[in-house]
């Protein structure tokens, strides 16, 4: 009957209770909204990083990452590509030859990494025609075409169709140079990447790398430093990596979290961020709840005195006030969760377009539309934190209630 009393007591002052319930519902909604936004931003950022830069899984020679020396090639990379494509989870594979070198215009020079790719392969994994803002994506069939970002072109004071010279060390250890013509300018919205990477055809770079070698033709076909994989099921990254590592013990297989540790950090940060939102909002609500319950206790001074006079002991009074606080607090939870879930589902579908507010997102490698999302656990987190909050908020009013002395309360009758 204490439960029944506690529940009915909440509705003795329906306006006041409704205000508290609504405040709690809105608090939960706001926390879910912010978590949904943060998680959506995170996924957006990671998704962009994966498609533009790191892909899901990268394969290298075990020494390559430490040294970046052109000698650390992947043996039989092109036949390996076919094997990889046969794995059901693998959606696309791009084989790349990489060199670090110097790019020079008539006015200035900069260090860059040259990513040498086969356009047909690369378009399915990373850079593709839709990222080209001027010119085209290796459309003409001439030798030594090059793609660079608009940013880098500005830095080098060059434009489409300008000539630039790449200088790098070949497989024989000699410094070699070659002229390339800029046939396309790309933009992926990731400044650091854009300033440091240019794209050429793999056959062009391979030819230059092996020019000094006697059996050059044989080597040329095999030459590759990186294989980038895109999966059809991104949540399978870890099992696929483990499987590949077992099959290819001589190579280093890395997921995007290993290639770009900042992505993993970001992922884990966003998960704790929703705790922070919830806790901050609940902390603000605690005072509202305590205040309401204190008012309730003071208003019912006589009644509580009477209850203690006729034999309701302090523990039971304490429990009744605690229950009232819990009911009052939790009554708003379903509404808040439903609102939050609805908002996140809606904005997860339709996305929230932020381009009106700024293009700043693009500069950090993100798209302007954020698709809201929260992990399932967030809803449970919200309930958990609310219960803790309500429990804490109930202690003081309940303690206040049992401190009253029945004689004094009854005297006032």
């Amino acid at each position: 009957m204490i439960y029944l009393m506690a529940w009915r007591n909440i509705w003795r002052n329906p306006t006041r209770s409704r205000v508290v319930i609504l405040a709690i519902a809105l608090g939960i909604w706001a926390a879910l909204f912010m978590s949904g936004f943060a998680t959506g931003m995170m996924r957006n950022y990671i998704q962009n990083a994966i498609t533009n830069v790191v892909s899901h899984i990268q394969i290298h020679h075990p020494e390559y990452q430490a040294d970046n020396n052109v000698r650390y090639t992947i043996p039989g990379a092109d036949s390996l590509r076919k094997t990889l494509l046969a794995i059901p989870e693998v959606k696309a594979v791009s084989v790349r030859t990489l060199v670090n070198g110097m790019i020079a215009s008539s006015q200035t020079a900069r260090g860059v990494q040259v990513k040498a790719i086969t356009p047909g392969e690369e378009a399915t994994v990373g850079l593709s025609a839709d990222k080209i803002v001027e010119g085209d994506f290796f459309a003409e069939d001439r030798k030594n075409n090059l793609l660079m970002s608009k940013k880098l072109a500005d830095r080098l004071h060059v434009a489409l169709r300008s000539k630039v010279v790449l200088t790098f060390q070949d497989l024989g250890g000699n410094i070699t140079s070659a002229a390339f013509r800029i046939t396309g300018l790309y933009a992926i919205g990731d400044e650091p990447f854009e300033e440091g990477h240019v794209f050429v055809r793999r056959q062009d770079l391979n030819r230059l790398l092996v020019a000094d070698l006697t059996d050059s033709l044989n080597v040329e076909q095999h030459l590759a430093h990186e294989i980038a994989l895109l999966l059809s099921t991104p949540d399978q990254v870890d099992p696929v990596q483990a499987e590949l590592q077992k099959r290819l013990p001589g190579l280093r297989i890395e997921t995007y979290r290993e290639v770009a540790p900042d992505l993993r950090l970001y992922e884990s940060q966003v998960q704790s961020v929703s705790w922070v939102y919830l806790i901050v909002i609940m902390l603000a609500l605690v005072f509202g709840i305590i205040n309401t319950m204190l008012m309730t206790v003071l208003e019912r001074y006589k009644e509580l005195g009477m209850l203690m006079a006729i034999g309701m002991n302090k523990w039971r009074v304490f429990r009744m006030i605690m229950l009232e606080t819990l009911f009052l607090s939790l009554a708003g939870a379903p509404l808040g969760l439903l609102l939050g879930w609805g908002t996140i589902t809606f904005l997860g579908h339709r996305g929230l377009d932020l381009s009106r507010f700024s293009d700043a997102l693009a500069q950090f490698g993100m798209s302007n539309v954020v698709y809201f999302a929260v992990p399932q656990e967030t809803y449970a987190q919200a309930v958990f934190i609310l219960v803790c909050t309500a429990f804490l908020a109930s202690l003081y009013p309940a303690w206040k209630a049992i401190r009253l002395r029945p004689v004094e309360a009854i005297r006032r009758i």
Partner: protein
Amino acid sequence: MGVIHVEGVSKIYNPDKIPVTALQGVSLTIEAGEFTAIVGPSGSGKTTLLNVIGGLDRPTSGRVAVGGHEITGLSDNELIDFRKEHIGFVFQAYNLIPVLTARENVSFVMLLQNRPAAEREARTQELLAAVGLEDQIDKRPAELSGGQQQRVAVARALAPKPAFILADEPTANLDSHSASNLLDIMARLNEEEGVTFLFSTHDQRVIDRARRVITLVDGAIARDEYRS
């Protein structure tokens, strides 16, 4: 030794600041089955005496025993439990829990005593019938008149089968018709069921119904007379 035994009880409020002597050296014994009124001018100590007997307040000196148990040395929580088992209270107002129906109010103390549901239900019906409210059992206090509320309070006080019922000015807020109706019910319960009543009052018509009248003046017993 009677059901209530008060011996040399004094009560001084605010002993440190401005002391107010509410009771001085009160001794009395109430036997089972009495129907006794405590009367006296305002401020004479009636409420204080009832509170001390009911274990709601502690005497400054002296002893109070109820049903042979000395209650003077009990802790707050022990007193609450003692009241729950042995004493029925009817106050001037605010007797009932507003969010509970008449039926729930009457079963409430039995619930605190962990009595089985069937017993609670049966006794609640019986008691509400005894106070003439069998057709109001599912109404909340706000839906009942002042007199009806006091009758529910009497039923509620009787529910745990207490040794006696203490009632501090139970009729003070009632019109004369309701007051005499309440008195009829109390008197009948006293005669037919042997329930012991100890009540305070200002009302001459209520005093006339009592079979023993104890008069307090300035915190001391000035007269103690039995009527036939």
